[in-house]
């Protein structure tokens, strides 16, 4: 098999703080790949570098044969993404969010409508397509983002903690569908999650990152065997320790608050 993502000696520093430290790994074409690690390990930072949002401090990346820091549009055409943080326009309807995406990705006009309808149906939002996204629950927004990420038939789908806030039914439904596209269309899936059972069940291969360094790599079974663990969760704790990490929230919450106080927007 050919590698659809190649990462070599990738490093990202923020004002001297090393968030990603000289990591190298690859993802095979058509693979379901889990990128695991505790909070602050450097997962989202790595995904941002793979998806042209952030320039690496050093190192080499190839996504779909193109370099995200050189040939950005070639890379951008090839992937879909569900970000860790919300990325919908709350003041637009579900349909409008989808249409905007369809236009940005130049999906042909004659297939646009059908494709959007099919995907909204898949995420069970057909009857809410004309509702403003700000009236949606967290789970509904997530589902809409997943549908949107698939709209343009990406070769790679990045999912950064996509199942946060989803109930087990939806999560199960989502994975059934993703695995189906993965099989039928050979779409590569690159995902992060804190649910170890989800990774154990769905991932063909796993890379574990901690404090910006890759600490292990292999199939779920290989990782369990290597750490003599009964579950992936146990293996994960064995590899990354029991110490609890703080997630740096705060800034966004504070701003949400302020926007509320300001009011004036709606």
């Amino acid at each position: 098999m050919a590698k659809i993502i190649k990462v070599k000696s990738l490093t990202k520093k923020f004002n001297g703080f090393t968030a990603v430290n000289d990591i190298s790994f690859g993802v095979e074409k058509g693979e379901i790949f889990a990128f695991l690690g505790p909070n602050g390990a450097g997962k989202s930072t790595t995904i941002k570098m793979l998806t042209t949002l952030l320039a690496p401090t050093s190192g080499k990346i190839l996504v779909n044969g193109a370099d995200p820091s050189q040939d950005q549009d070639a890379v951008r055409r090839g992937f879909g993404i569900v970000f860790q943080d919300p990325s919908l326009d709350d003041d637009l309807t579900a349909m409008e969010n989808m249409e905007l995406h369809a236009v940005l990705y130049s999906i042909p006009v004659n297939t646009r409508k059908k494709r959007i309808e099919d995907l909204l149906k898949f995420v069970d939002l057909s009857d809410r397509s004309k509702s403003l996204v700000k009236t949606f629950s967290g789970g509904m927004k997530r589902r809409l983002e997943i549908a949107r990420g698939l709209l343009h038939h990406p070769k790679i789908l990045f999912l950064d903690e996509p199942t946060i806030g989803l109930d087990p039914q939806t999560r199960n439904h989502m994975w059934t569908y993703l695995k189906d596209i993965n099989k039928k269309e050979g779409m590569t899936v690159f995902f992060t999650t804190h649910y170890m059972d989800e990774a154990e069940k769905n991932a063909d291969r796993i890379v574990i990152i901690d404090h910006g360094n890759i600490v292990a790599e292999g199939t779920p079974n290989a990782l369990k065997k290597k750490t003599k663990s009964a579950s992936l969760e146990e293996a994960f704790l064995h590899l990354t320790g029991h110490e609890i990490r703080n997630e740096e929230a705060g800034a966004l919450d504070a701003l949400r608050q302020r926007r509320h106080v300001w009011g004036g927007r709606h």
Partner: protein
Amino acid sequence: MEQIYILWKRQVVKYFRSRSRIIGSLGQPLLYLIAFGYGFGGVFARAGQGNYIQFLAPGIVAMSILFTAIFAGIEIIWDRQFGFLKETMVAPVSRFSIMLGRTLGGATVATFQGIVVLILSTFVGFRFTTYYHIPLALLFMFIIALLFTALGTAIASMLEDMQGFQLIMNFLVMPIFFLSGSLYPIQGLPKAMEIATKIDPMTYGIDGLRGVLGGAAQFGTGFDLLVLSVITFVFLLIGSYLFSKIQI
């Protein structure tokens, strides 16, 4: 092209959807028209300057365009914080198209706001002396709107959050407004203030707008248009450069 259009449309749709915002932002210009218009009208006339409302209305129209346009540009910060900016930044669309679509959308909204204020001003006594010039007035309004949306975009591209917003309002936007001759004639000002006035791009917007709405343009509307166009072009260039440098 279609990408520019859809991003333009997004701004416009969002604007018309937020009725309370439209109505809320009409309060201030209306208050200025009434308070300044009636308050200084007598003094202005006694000083031999003519009808103050005729003089003031173009200034207040431009003011509401200025505020709406800067705010439309600054909205990039909201989009950044609330995540939608990422959706556009990973799309296979040139940064320039994204910036242009947004800026044109913001400028359209600001122009519309200016039109509403212009209509409102007729209720407090503003009179059109000629209707031929209305298309020219719209042109001036749109260029003012474009200029300041581009400025807002440029500023917002450099800011991570709204912390600096108050600073920008107090030390950039308010001076742009007050030093532009929107409220008073700019002849015979102290030297330092005259220089500040002539640096302020808004001065030429208001001068031109006043000219085509039947007043006297001190610099000549042709010259005003030229200055505005050049500055708008420069701001668009700076704005799209800074926008293309955004990292998330």
